[in-house]
C-alpha cells in the first residue's frame, strides 16, 4: 500500500457554438441623444463578462471609448433573438452581430457628421475619444455628442444599426455522414500530476499546467479569470461532481446542491495557465469561445495521470476513490 504518483497529458479541440438547425444571434445598436451607444441583446451575461466584451466590441467598431457604450442583455421579450449563452458561443456569435450593427450605426453617424462638416462621409474618421475628424485635416472636427444632437433634433436621423450573425444549418452528407457543425475551434492541452493512494483510492491533483489557444483574447484579464476558474472546474468534473454519487442505498444519497461535491479552497491544485492567441478567421476581432472548453482537457489528463499512477483505466466520471478501488481489485483478479 502506497501513495503513487502519475502524470497525464491530454489535448482537445473544442467547437465555438453548436449547430442545431441554424445558430443565429442578432443585435441592435442605437445612439442616445447625447452620443452614448446602447447595445440591445437577449443574450445572457452569467458572470463571464459578456456585457464588458460587447461594450468593447461596439466601442471599437464605432470608434468611441468603451465607457460610452451601455449593454442591455437578457430580455427575450424585448431583445433581438439570441440562441443563448451556451456552447462557448456568446463572444463569437453576439460579438459578430454587434460588429455588424455597430458598423451600420457608425455609417449613419458619419453621414450626419458629413452633413454638419460639409464634407464626404468617406473622408471622415473617428479618433476613438468621441470625435469625428476630417482625414488629413484633423482641425476640422465635430464631437459625437454634437453629431447625436444634430441627428436627433435637426436632421431627423436615427443613428442605429441592425446586426445578424447566423451559422446556417449544416446537413450531413448522405453518403459519408460528414458535416460542418462548427466554423471555429479553440484548442487546449493540459498536463496533470496526481498522487493516488492505492489503499483508499483517493486522488490528489498536485499540479495542472494548461495551454489554451483561444483566438484573440479580447480582454486578457477576463480571459485569464475564465481559464483559472475553468481549470478548477475541469478537475471538479474529473474527480468530484455527480448528481448520483455511489451509495449502497439510494436513500443515503445527496438530495440537494449542498451535497453536490466540488473541490473547496483547500483542495486546489497548483495551476498554471498559458494563453496562445491565433486570431480566428470568422471571430469578432479574431476571438474564439474560451468559455466551456477551458474545463475539458483536465478531465482526460487526470484520467491518464491516474492510469500512469496505478495502472487502471477509469472510464466513468467522476473518478471516485470507490471506482479506483474496484478497478484495482479487478486488476488484481479479485471478483468485484
Amino acid at each position, binding site marked *: 500500500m502506497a501513495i503513487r504518483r502519475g502524470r497525464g497529458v491530454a489535448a482537445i479541440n473544442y467547437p465555438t457554438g453548436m449547430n442545431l438547425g441554424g445558430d443565429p444571434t442578432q443585435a441592435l445598436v442605437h445612439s442616445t441623444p447625447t452620443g452614448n451607444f446602447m447595445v440591445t441583446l437577449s443574450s445572457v451575461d452569467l458572470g463571464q463578462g459578456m456585457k464588458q466584451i460587447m461594450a468593447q466590441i461596439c466601442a471599437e467598431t464605432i470608434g468611441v471609448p468603451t465607457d460610452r457604450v451601455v449593454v442591455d442583455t437578457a430580455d427575450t421579450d424585448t431583445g433581438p433573438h439570441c440562441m443563448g449563452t451556451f456552447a462557448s458561443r456568446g463572444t463569437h456569435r453576439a460579438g459578430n452581430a454587434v460588429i455588424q450593427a455597430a458598423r451600420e450605426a457608425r455609417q449613419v453617424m458619419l453621414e450626419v457628421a458629413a452633413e454638419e462638416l460639409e464634407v464626404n462621409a468617406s473622408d471622415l474618421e473617428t479618433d476613438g475619444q468621441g470625435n469625428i475628424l476630417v482625414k488629413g485635416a484633423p482641425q476640422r472636427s465635430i464631437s459625437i455628442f454634437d453629431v447625436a444632437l444634430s441627428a436627433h433634433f435637426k436632421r431627423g436621423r436615427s443613428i442605429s444599426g441592425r446586426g445578424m450573425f447566423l451559422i446556417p444549418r449544416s446537413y450531413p452528407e448522405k453518403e459519408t455522414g460528414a458535416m460542418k457543425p462548427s466554423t471555429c475551434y479553440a484548442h487546449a492541452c493540459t498536463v496533470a500530476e496526481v498522487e493516488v493512494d492505492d489503499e483508499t483510492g483517493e486522488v490528489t491533483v498536485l499540479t495542472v499546467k494548461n495551454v489554451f489557444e483561444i483566438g484573440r483574447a479580447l480582454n486578457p*484579464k477576463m480571459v485569464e479569470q475564465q481559464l483559472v476558474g475553468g481549470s*478548477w472546474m475541469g478537475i471538479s468534473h474529473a474527480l468530484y461532481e455527480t448528481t448520483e454519487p455511489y451509495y449502497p442505498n439510494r436513500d443515503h444519497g445527496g438530495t440537494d446542491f449542498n451535497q453536490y461535491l466540488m473541490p473547496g479552497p*483547500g483542495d486546489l491544485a497548483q*495551476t498554471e495557465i498559458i494563453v496562445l492567441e491565433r486570431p480566428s478567421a470568422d471571430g469578432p476581432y479574431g476571438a474564439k469561445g474560451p468559455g466551456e472548453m477551458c474545463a475539458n482537457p483536465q478531465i482526460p489528463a487526470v484520467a491518464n495521470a491516474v492510469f500512469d499512477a496505478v495502472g487502471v483505466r477509469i472510464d466513468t466520471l467522476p473518478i471516485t476513490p470507490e471506482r479506483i478501488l474496484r478497478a484495482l481489485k479487478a486488476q488484481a483478479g479479485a471478483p468485484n
Partner: protein
Amino acid sequence: MAKVPVQFTLNGAEKAEFIDSGTTLLHALRDKIGDTSPKGGCHQGTCGACSVIIDGELRLSCLTLAETCNGAAITTTSGLSKGGVLHPLQRAFLDAFATQCGFCTPGMIMAAKVLLDQTPNPSRDEVVEALSGNICRCTGYEPIIQAVLTAARSNSQNAA
C-alpha cells in the same frame, strides 16, 4: 400574526422594523430594509453567501432570526466603502479579478473581513480555513485567496 419589533444598527445606522416572528435576518435585511448585499444561496447554512458580521462575529443571516438581533451591531458588505472609497478588501477583490458572477462575493468579503480583523497577517492556510464555509462556483477560489492575502498586505502597509 402579531408583528414583533426589532431594533439594531446596520453599518452604523439605527434600524427599527416590525417583522413577523420567525423572519430570518437575511429576509429582514434584503426585503424589509433593502440591503441586498447579503445573498440567499441555499437558505440552509451551507453556502455562506448570506454571511454578515454581528457584533464582530461572522454569522449566517439565513440561519439567524432577526428578532434575536435586538441591540446588535450588524455589518454587511454594502457598509464597507467609506465616502465612495472602497474598503481594501473590495479593492483587492476587484484588482485580483476575484469575482465573476459575484454571487459569493459579499459573503467571501465578510468572511475575509472577520479573518483580517482578528488575524491581520494570516497565512495562506488561515485564509483557506476562513473561506472554507463559503462556496464559489466560478473563480476556482485561487483569485479570492490571493485577493485576501493582498488586502492583508495593504492593510499592514497602511498601518506601518
